[in-house]
């Protein structure tokens, strides 16, 4: 016997999306419920079990930190892009990953990509190393250490994995 809601968080997010897209009325709520139950069942073969969330406070703090960094770092990148281009020193950087769960790795890679200055380009075949492209690289060691300390640690604290 399969569970009625194999992915409760996904179902909740789907229902919330549907209600936001349309309006709050009994018919739309019913439709949202149907979608929230049906879609996880249909897409189940593609989904990976979410690791449990250990601390919601850490998750919220991480979200705030990332939002703040996006704005700050975008201003820094704007200065780089508008300044003299010849002086930029781009580089590829290998980052050894401490997180192992697929969702945690995906989250870390996405955060690194969305925070300006670095982009995740590839993984090693065993998914233990992440390859980054950095727009302007000054100190590789320090850069990697900062990324890991700033984003990877909260992810590890926040998820049970």
């Amino acid at each position, binding site marked *: 016997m399969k569970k009625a809601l194999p992915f409760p968080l996904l179902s909740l997010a789907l229902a919330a*999306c549907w209600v*936001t*897209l349309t309006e709050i009325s009994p018919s739309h709520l019913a439709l949202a419920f149907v979608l929230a139950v049906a879609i996880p069942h249909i897409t189940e073969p593609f989904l990976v079990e979410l690791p449990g969330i250990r601390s919601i406070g850490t998750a919220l703090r991480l979200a705030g930190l990332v939002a703040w960094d*996006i*704005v700050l*770092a*975008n201003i820094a*990148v*704007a200065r780089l*892009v*508008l300044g003299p*281009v010849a002086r*930029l020193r*781009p*580089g*590829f950087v*290998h980052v050894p990953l401490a997180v192992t769960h697929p969702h945690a790795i995906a989250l870390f*890679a*996405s955060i690194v*990509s*969305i*925070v*300006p*200055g670095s*982009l*995740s*380009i*590839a*993984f*090693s*075949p065993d*998914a233990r190393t992440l*390859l980054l*492209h950095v*727009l302007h690289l000054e100190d590789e060691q320090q850069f990697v250490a900062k990324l890991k300390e700033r984003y990877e640690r909260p992810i590890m604290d926040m998820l049970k994995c």
Partner: protein
Amino acid sequence: MQDVIVSLLLLVGSFFILVGAIGLVRLPDFFMRLHGPTKSTTLGVGGMLLAAVVHAAGRDFSLRESLITLFLFVTAPVSAYLLGQAGLRRRIMSRAPLPDEVSGPGCRQP
């Protein structure tokens, strides 16, 4: 007051959209160009969508616009990753020396 906030957000959004496009035109190699659109432009559109939410707040409050922002912020790293993989596979010209061996889970052969 509402108009002032909307205007400010629009100006911020315009600035970052322009920065993204300038980066796309100006930067010398593909991997550097990848940075401009994925971040600056996404943030710029985010600012404009925020402006739309604030502007619509007077008529009927809805967070629909913020869904597009969320969608863009989730998809931007994915498309950047896939484009980067394509660039690596094609051994494209790059100012930074290309690493030798890479293969990612996003590129597994069927």
